[in-house]
C-alpha cells in the first residue's frame, strides 16, 4: 500500500501544471476562479489550446485523439485543470456525446463529428431532461416519429446548459410509445439550425443565463443522425451518465477555492488584523480541508479499485464522491461568502468595500454560493444518490 505517486506520475503532473499555467490565458482562469460568467470565446479558446496539445479528449480512443493515459494520469490531469482554474473541456462534447459516438456511432458519424467535437468546432448541448421528469429521467415524453428518411420530433427539453451557444444537440427521444419506460427511447443528433427549434433562456439563482428550454415543433431530423439502434437509446444514455459521474467530486476545484480563500483572508482587514487571524474562521476552513483530504483519498481508492477491476464501469462508490464532493464544494462557497461579510449582499458588478485590490471579488461571492446549490441537484440529486447507495451497496 502506498499513497505516493510514482516519479513518472509526479513528472506528468509537473508537465501538465506548467503547460496550463503558461498557455491558458490568465484572464480566463481568473474568471473561473472567481466563478464569473465565461463567454463562449473563453471556453472555445481554452479547449482549442488543450486540443492542440492533444489534451482535450485524453480519455477517448487513441484513434480519435485519446491519450491512452492510466486512470491515475486522468485523475491528475483533471485535478490540475481544476487547480489551475482552467475551464474544463466542454463536457457535452468531451465526456458525453463524443464517447457515445466513438462507442456506438456509425463510421460515418465518427468521421463527421469526432474531430470537430474535440476541437469545439461543433458545440454540443444536451437534450435529456424534460419539464416534469426531473430525477425520473426515463419518463421523458419528446416524440420522434419515423417519416421516410427522417424523424419528426415534437416536444420540449429543459435545463439545456449553454444551449444558446450550441450548434448541435444530442437528444433522448421516445420512438416507441408502446414500450415500457426505458425501452422505446432513441439517441438522436439534431442540428440546432433545423427549422422548428426554439431556445428560451432560463436565468438561474446567481443571475446568469446558463440554462435553457428547447422546444421542438415538427423538427425534421435525417434518420442517419440516429446513434446506434432505434429504441436502444437508454443504454447509450446510461453509458454517458456513468462518464458524467467521473470527476464529479471536483476536488481540485475545491482545493483551488480554498487556496484562494486563504490568500484573500490574509489580505482582508478585520478588527485589528485580518480575517486570517480569526481563529473561528480558520477552524471552519481546517474542518473543510480535512474532509476534502479524506475525500481525495476516497477518490483515489475508487480509481484504484476500478483499475484493479480493469473496468471503466461506474463504481456505486462514485455516488459517495458525488454526495460528499458536492457538499464540500458548497461548504467552500459558504466560507467564501462568510469572508465577503457584509459585502456578500452586493449585487454583481459592483465593487465596493475596503480599498484593496483583493476585494474586487466580493460581488461574485454570493453568485458563486447561489450557483453552487445546483451541484447537489444535477446529475442525480444527492437524495437519488442516497437511494443508489442504499440499494447497490447496502442491499436495502
Amino acid at each position: 500500500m502506498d499513497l505516493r505517486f510514482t516519479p513518472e506520475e509526479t513528472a506528468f503532473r509537473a508537465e501538465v501544471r506548467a503547460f496550463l499555467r503558461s498557455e491558458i490565458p490568465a484572464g480566463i482562469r481568473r474568471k473561473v476562479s472567481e466563478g464569473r460568467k465565461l463567454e463562449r470565446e473563453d471556453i472555445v479558446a481554452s479547449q482549442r489550446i488543450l486540443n492542440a496539445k492533444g489534451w482535450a479528449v485524453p480519455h477517448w480512443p487513441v484513434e480519435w485523439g485519446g491519450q491512452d493515459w492510466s486512470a491515475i494520469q486522468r485523475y491528475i490531469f483533471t485535478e490540475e485543470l481544476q487547480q489551475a482554474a482552467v475551464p474544463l473541456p466542454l463536457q457535452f462534447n468531451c465526456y458525453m456525446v463524443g464517447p457515445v459516438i466513438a462507442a456506438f456511432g456509425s463510421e460515418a458519424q465518427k468521421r463527421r463529428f469526432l474531430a470537430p467535437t474535440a476541437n469545439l468546432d461543433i458545440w454540443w448541448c444536451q437534450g435529456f431532461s424534460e419539464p416534469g421528469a426531473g430525477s425520473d429521467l426515463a419518463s421523458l415524453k419528446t416524440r420522434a416519429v419515423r417519416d421516410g428518411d427522417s424523424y419528426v420530433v415534437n416536444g420540449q427539453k429543459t435545463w439545456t446548459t449553454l444551449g444558446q451557444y450550441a450548434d448541435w444537440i444530442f437528444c433522448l427521444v421516445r420512438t416507441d410509445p408502446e414500450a415500457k419506460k426505458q425501452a422505446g427511447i432513441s439517441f438522436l443528433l439534431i442540428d440546432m439550425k433545423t427549422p422548428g427549434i426554439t431556445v428560451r433562456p432560463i436565468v438561474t439563482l446567481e443571475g446568469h443565463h446558463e440554462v435553457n428550454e428547447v422546444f421542438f415543433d415538427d423538427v425534421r431530423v435525417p434518420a442517419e443522425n440516429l446513434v446506434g439502434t432505434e429504441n436502444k437509446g437508454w443504454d447509450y444514455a446510461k453509458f454517458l451518465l456513468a462518464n458524467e459521474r467521473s470527476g464529479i467530486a471536483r476536488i481540485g476545484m475545491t482545493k483551488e477555492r480554498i487556496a484562494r480563500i486563504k490568500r484573500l483572508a490574509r489580505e482582508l482587514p478585520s478588527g485589528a488584523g485580518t480575517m486570517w487571524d480569526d481563529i473561528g474562521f480558520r477552524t471552519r476552513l481546517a474542518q473543510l480541508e480535512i474532509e476534502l483530504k479524506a475525500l481525495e483519498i476516497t477518490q483515489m481508492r475508487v480509481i484504484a479499485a476500478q483499475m484493479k477491476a480493469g473496468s471503466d464501469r461506474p463504481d456505486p462508490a462514485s455516488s459517495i464522491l458525488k454526495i460528499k464532493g458536492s457538499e464540500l464544494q458548497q461548504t467552500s462557497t459558504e466560507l467564501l461568502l462568510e469572508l465577503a461579510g457584509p459585502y456578500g449582499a452586493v449585487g454583481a458588478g459592483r465593487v465596493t468595500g475596503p480599498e484593496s485590490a483583493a476585494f474586487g471579488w466580493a460581488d461574485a461571492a454570493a453568485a458563486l454560493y447561489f450557483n453552487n446549490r445546483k451541484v447537489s441537484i444535477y446529475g442525480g440529486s444527492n437524495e437519488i444518490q442516497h437511494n443508489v447507495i442504499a440499494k447497490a451497496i447496502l442491499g436495502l
Partner: protein
Amino acid sequence: MDFDLTSEQGQLKDSIGRYLAGRYSGLEAREAMRRRPEGRDPALWQGLAELGLLGMPFAEEDGGYGGGPVETMIAMEAIGRSLALEPFLATGVLGAAALRFGASAAQKARLIPEIAAGDLCLSVALTEPGARHDLGHVATRAEETPAGPVLSGRKDLIVWGESADAIVVPARLDTGGVGLFLVDPRGAGAQLSGYAAQDGSRLADLVLDRAPAERLDPVEGSAEDADGLTVIERIAEAGIAALAAEAVGAMEELHRLTVDYLKTRRQFGVPIGSFQALQHKAVDMLLMVEQARSMACYGAMMVEADDPAERRAALSAVKVQINRSARFVGQTAVQLHGGIGMTMEYIGAHYFKRLTVIETQLGDTAFHLARVADAGGLIAAE
C-alpha cells in the same frame, strides 16, 4: 406570558398583510417594481402611510401612533412574507430608532409628522469600508464650522440609501466620541451612488467631503447622550429584531411553497412528498422556522430591555438563530424543489436570496455567536 395580539395589532396585521399581498401579487408584479429606476414603486409608500404604518414606530407625544416592537414585528413579518421592496427597514426601523434614541424633542417634532405622512424617508449609514460587522468602526469625521458641522468620510452598504431624503450618519467628533448627524445625500459635499443588492433591493455608498450636517441631540443626560455608540447599538438592535421578523415571514412562506410543491410535483408516478426522506427534510425545515419564530418573539421582547448587556446578548442570540434557520430553510427549499428552485423564474428562489442577504446584514452568524460567547452565554452559572 401571552402571545396574543391586541385587537388593534390584529387589525394592523390584517390590513398590512392584505395591502402588500394585493400589490405583490406574484413574481411578475415584484419584478416590474424592481425594474423601475427607484428599484421599487414609490406609490406604495403613500399606501403604507395611509395604513398608519409609518407613524407607528413613534410615541404619540412625538407625533407618532405609539406602536412598539410588536407592531414592528407585524409589519416586518408581512414585508418578509410578501418579499416587499419597501424601505421600511431603512425608515421605519433604523431611521426611527435613530430619532427615538438620538434626537431632541424639537427634532422629533419636526421630522416625525413628515415621516408619518410618507413625505420623508430616512436611512442610516451604519458601516464604513473595512468595518466588517463592527459598528464602532467610525472613521468619518465631523468638524465644527461657523455655519455648523460638516462631515467628511465614506459610508457604504446603506440600505435603500437612494430612497432616503436624509441619511443618519455617525461621525467621529473632535472629542474622540461619536455623534449622529443628519445629512442630505443630494446636498453639497455629498455623493451618493446606488446599486442593486443580491436580493433585488438597493444599497448605496456615500462619500462626504465637508458635507453640511445637522447633529442629532439625544435627551440630555441619557446614556445615548453620553455616547453616540449607544445610539448606534440601539439602532442595530432594533434592526436585528426587525430582520428577525422579516426572515420569519419569508421562511414561513418559503416553507409553505415547498410543502405545496412536494404535494403537487410528481415523479416515479407519485407525489414526491410521499418520499419519507423528503418528508423528514420538510419537517426539519418546520423545526427551524418555529425556532426562528420563537427567537423573533424573543427579539421583540428584549429589544426594549433595560440592561444593555442583557439586551445586547439577547439580540445577538436572536440573529444567530435567525441566520441559521434562514440558511437551512433557504438551502433545503432549493434542494427539495430541484432544478426549478435554481431559477429566477420561481419566486421561491427570490426568498432564498433575500434570506441569504439577511444573514449578512447587521452581523453574520460568527460575529453574533462570538458576542454571545463573550457575554458568557444566556444562562447564569449561579
